[in-house]
């Protein structure tokens, strides 16, 4: 516990309000960025742009939210991006062949879920560290996707389906509704179900959790499945958004998703973090990119700035959270 890298924290388990402050810090950080941007560029505060940011954040959030649960168990899923790509391609094919969006959506979710399950099996049954297991999975998935797509593009989906990605309802983009829904579901799952509680417990100390009668392996499987399924969901939004599927859509998604989770204050040591935090993390990342586009900052700076934000965010975490022992 005196190990600097593992601060004593009051975690967000149901009985602790300790992380409420953390969320407030983040919200205010996001607000600060908003204020700065609105001062620098008047078109920033336009309703259109805000919705725009939310919609772009939603894509990141769907992937990151599932990932949050994995990180809560002190694990990691590097395969989410590749998973999105494969799921999207499969779902896309199904929609084009059957013409039924519903079947396509089911395919996407199922494919994502199965990949997640395999990850879970590797981590629990084969006892491979999640970091490595999912890294291997990433290559396997890419291989499958490349082989399946053979450099082609699947494009052109029924308008009804594309509404999911680009449609509006009462002036709000549909992805934003989905974002809010899954934010609510995710938070409820983590904070208000015993499964959620057990996941926190597993993350905080797997051995103690097992000896407290928690089915650790099953919870881990669950967590990886959820992560995979959320990737599947994200793949659907992608399809509807881009109206096409390519083998390379996933590539650029994994690290930002992880960054969102970390900026959101979820600890890599497990047991600490919230889905809502991840949402704010995704929001902050998107805000910055959006701002840079609006201010037409040289795109070369984007990775640099993202990197700095990740470090600063987590560093603030550690300093504000660490007990003075």
């Amino acid at each position, binding site marked *: 516990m005196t190990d600097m890298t593992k601060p004593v924290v009051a975690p967000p388990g149901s009985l602790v309000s300790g992380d409420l402050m953390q969320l407030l810090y983040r919200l205010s950080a996001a607000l600060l960025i908003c204020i700065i941007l609105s001062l620098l560029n008047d078109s920033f505060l336009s309703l259109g742009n805000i919705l725009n940011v939310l919609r772009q954040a939603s894509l990141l959030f769907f992937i990151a939210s599932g990932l949050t649960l994995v990180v809560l168990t002190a694990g990691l899923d590097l395969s989410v991006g590749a998973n999105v790509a494969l799921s999207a391609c499969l779902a896309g094919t199904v929609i084009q062949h059957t013409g039924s969006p519903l079947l396509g959506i089911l395919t996407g979710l199922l494919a994502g879920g199965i990949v997640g399950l395999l990850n879970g099996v590797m981590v629990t049954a084969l006892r*491979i560290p999640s970091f*490595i297991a999912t890294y291997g999975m990433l*290559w396997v998935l*890419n*291989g*499958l996707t490349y082989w399946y797509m053979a450099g082609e593009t699947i494009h052109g989906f029924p308008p009804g389906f594309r509404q999911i990605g680009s449609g509006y309802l009462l002036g709000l983009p549909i992805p934003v509704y989905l974002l809010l829904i899954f934010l609510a579901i995710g938070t409820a799952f983590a904070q208000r179900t015993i499964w959620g509680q057990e996941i926190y417990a597993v993350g905080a100390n797997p051995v103690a959790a097992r000896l407290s009668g928690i089915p650790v392996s099953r919870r881990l499987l669950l967590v990886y499945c959820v992560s995979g399924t959320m990737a599947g969901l994200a793949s659907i939004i992608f399809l509807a958004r881009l109206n096409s599927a390519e083998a390379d859509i996933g590539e650029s998604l994994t690290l930002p998703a992880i960054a969102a989770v970390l900026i959101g204050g979820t600890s*890599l040591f497990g047991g600490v973090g919230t889905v809502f935090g991840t949402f704010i993390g995704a929001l902050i990342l998107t805000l910055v990119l959006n701002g840079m586009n609006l201010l037409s900052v040289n795109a070369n700076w984007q990775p*640099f700035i993202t990197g700095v934000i990740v470090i600063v965010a987590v*560093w603030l975490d550690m300093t504000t959270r660490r007990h003075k022992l």
Partner: protein
Amino acid sequence: MRESAAASPLRRIPGVAVMLALLVGIFGTIAPGFLSPANISNVLLQSTILTMLALPMTLIIMTEGLDLSMGAVVTLTSLAVAIVSLATGSMLLGLAAAIVVGTAFGALNGWLVAIAGIPPFVATLGTLGMAQGLCLIVSDGQSVVGIPRAVRDIYSATLAGLPVPVVVALIAYAAFHVLLYHTRFGTYIFALGGNREALRYAGLSPAKWLIGVYTIGGLMAGIAGLLMTARMNAGHPTAGLGLEFDAIAAVAVGGTSFERGNGWLFGTVLGVIAVGVLRNGLNLLALPSSLQVASVGFLVIVALFLDGLRSRS
């Protein structure tokens, strides 16, 4: 994680070695020209840059750390070599610049991890972004070419019949072996991962040595940057991206565990070569690239699975 005793290197030797032997056996029989001297030197040559990164990565992982920034930093140092040697016409100045840049990033990583107390994954994920950004900014996305011949010759030249990069890699391995198993620093690296408190009680500052470990990582990235530039005879802003994961995979395949400072340096080298052999063999067989992609994943998973079996028995 109750795999304490079994995690000892000795019992792990098979994990990766068996695998490598298997691959060599298979390709040796079915892949034309696989065992030809030219091809063998190819594999070794291609493995050098990764080796230069995987060695320090082993030490970093032994301290229960990670360096995700390595790939990006190598790219940056490679650009530094290109730009400086182009401007000054001197290969050595280029190398110096690369080493300065690399070491600086390594020290930054070390500082963030040891002093600021940021988890290694996060800290180096951040510096990964920073290095990548710098690559684009200094090169504006363009390759840097027209580098003095001297730089390029490093890659093509041979020394005592061995390609220079291979010699460099061998020296690096020897150096790391001595460092890890025969110096105080090496001893403290085991302690950093195995029991950090022990260092404190011994009146040593873990932070200081931890920074040292990451700095060495940066230093090696600097040297690898020279090889990279020499190989391409150019600096390119994306050349080395993703190498860090290859390095981590090699270390893991090589049987170094992510817990309690249990590392095996030679296993790492075997791991690197295994990955290299796999890619090379598949190329010789001219199998569909998609299959090659997947096979890398399988290699990693199977190797780790074998070690898992071993550590449980």
